[in-house]
């Protein structure tokens, strides 16, 4: 399979409201270039998760539109991967079979990808857990399987919905570093939703701060530090300054709503 190119994303005055509920998202407009790492931070109920679900075509928009490389999400599915809050592994499959799942399902049956599975397992450090079942794995390992599975199809767009929220800080930092390392292998555009300001600054080149009721963009912070970024990036003054700025912006929006 030829590696897919990183996708571009265009979001045009996107809105989402559920019947007999308040608006979840209102008038969100932004566009992402191929290779952008976009993070969304914001208080609970600001529609972060809904935004990702709209991007994956898991729920239709109430107004406005989303396009991925110029097509609607439901038609761009082979170009995108979704990493959920939970690892969502099939408990009856081994690590290896879970990682292979995207090849067994859907339309990409013709590929022979055994080498790719081994490579991915090695990249996420699970080559020794290939024949283990999910219940034998720790929370961090399960998330690594989920990560490897998402990269199996070499996505142009990777959507991540607070994937590391349930992990301890050490594991979370390790996985953030791994995620950037994996992006060096096969570039993809990423949309990352998180509660953690430091995680957002560490990973992204663009951080959007969202406000709630209804969810909308309150501000954007550009992170100019070049990739590849490693753990040292967390020690830098630039990083600290940006975390402080994003935290202040987040506090401001919460005060307002």
């Amino acid at each position, binding site marked *: 399979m030829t590696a897919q190119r990183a996708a571009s994303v265009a979001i045009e005055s996107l809105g989402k409201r559920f019947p007999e509920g308040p608006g979840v998202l209102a008038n969100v407009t932004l566009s992402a270039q191929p290779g952008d790492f976009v993070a969304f931070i914001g208080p609970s109920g600001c529609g972060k998760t809904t935004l990702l679900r709209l991007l994956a075509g*898991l729920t239709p928009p109430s107004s406005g539109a989303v396009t991925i490389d110029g097509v609607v999400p439901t038609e761009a599915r082979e170009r995108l991967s979704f990493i959920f809050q939970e690892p969502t592994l099939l408990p009856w499959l081994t690590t290896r079979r879970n990682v292979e799942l995207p090849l067994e399902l859907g339309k990409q049956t013709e590929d022979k990808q055994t080498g790719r599975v081994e490579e991915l397992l090695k990249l996420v450090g699970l080559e020794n857990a290939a024949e283990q079942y999910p219940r034998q794995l720790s929370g961090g390992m399960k998330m690594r399987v989920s990560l490897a599975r998402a990269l199996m199809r070499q996505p142009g767009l990777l959507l991540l919905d607070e994937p590391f929220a349930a992990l301890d800080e050490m594991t979370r930092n390790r996985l953030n570093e791994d995620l950037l390392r994996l992006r060096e292998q096969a570039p993809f555009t990423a949309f990352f939703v998180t509660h953690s300001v430091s995680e957002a600054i560490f990973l992204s080149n663009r951080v959007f701060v969202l406000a709630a009721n209804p969810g909308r963009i309150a501000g954007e912070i550009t992170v100019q530090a070049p990739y590849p970024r490693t753990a040292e990036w967390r020690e830098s003054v630039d990083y600290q300054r940006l975390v402080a700025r994003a935290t202040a912006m987040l506090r401001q929006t919460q005060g307002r709503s």
Partner: protein
Amino acid sequence: MSTSQQKTSWWLPPLIAGAGLLALWYAVIAIFGIPTYLLPKPHEVIAALWRERAALFPAALHTGGAALVGFATAVIGGVMVALALASSRWLKSALYPWVLVVQMIPVVVMVPIFVIWFHAGLRSITAIAFMISFFPVVASTTLGLVSTDRGLLELFTVLQASKWQEIFRLRLPYALPYFLSGVKIAATLAPIGAISGEFLAGTTPDSLGYLLLIYRSDPGKMPEVFAIALVACLLGFLFVGAVRWLSWSLLHHWHESERSGE
């Protein structure tokens, strides 16, 4: 604890308790002077079992066969009905409550009806075993099929799985532990249903229930009645044991229900 200790510890306590219960059985008979026609001694039951083997063995085979056929068709049919119920929200909400209601009909009521429909032979016994096994399988499998994890369903949507892949690769394996718990109930009920049916119908030849009718009319045959209880017990043990083994071999890799004692 060492592994050899763990290996002996599972069968030793029930064995000791079993020997104790046998001793108690003898003691009660000796102390209260209970005659054989009320409570036979254990060795008399074994002797009766051996004496009547020519009648008991084919009867057990017939009863077991009828129970097995009824049980197997109930499992297959139950899964198919469960798939149909789970495929439509409307069907499920309309019919699932009735599945639970029909389960409440006692065998005693169904037996005369089935005897009228199918006559008193093994066919009506098979029908009873089917009827008693069918609803637990439908109820538990349907429950399993509709409670598939939402996150996994969305994963399959994002991965562009077809409707068939969603059923066979996700919903069915996810429902497997639910299905097996229904099958376990069915396996317990099927032989009981068959024997009760034979007993209540009264004219099913060469069956355990029919032999029970004959033996109990003769006060001297109390050991034979107990021998039937023993055979019925073994029959039930075969059914439940087979299902438990199946359940273990399918689930022990991944499901908590088969992981106790680790």
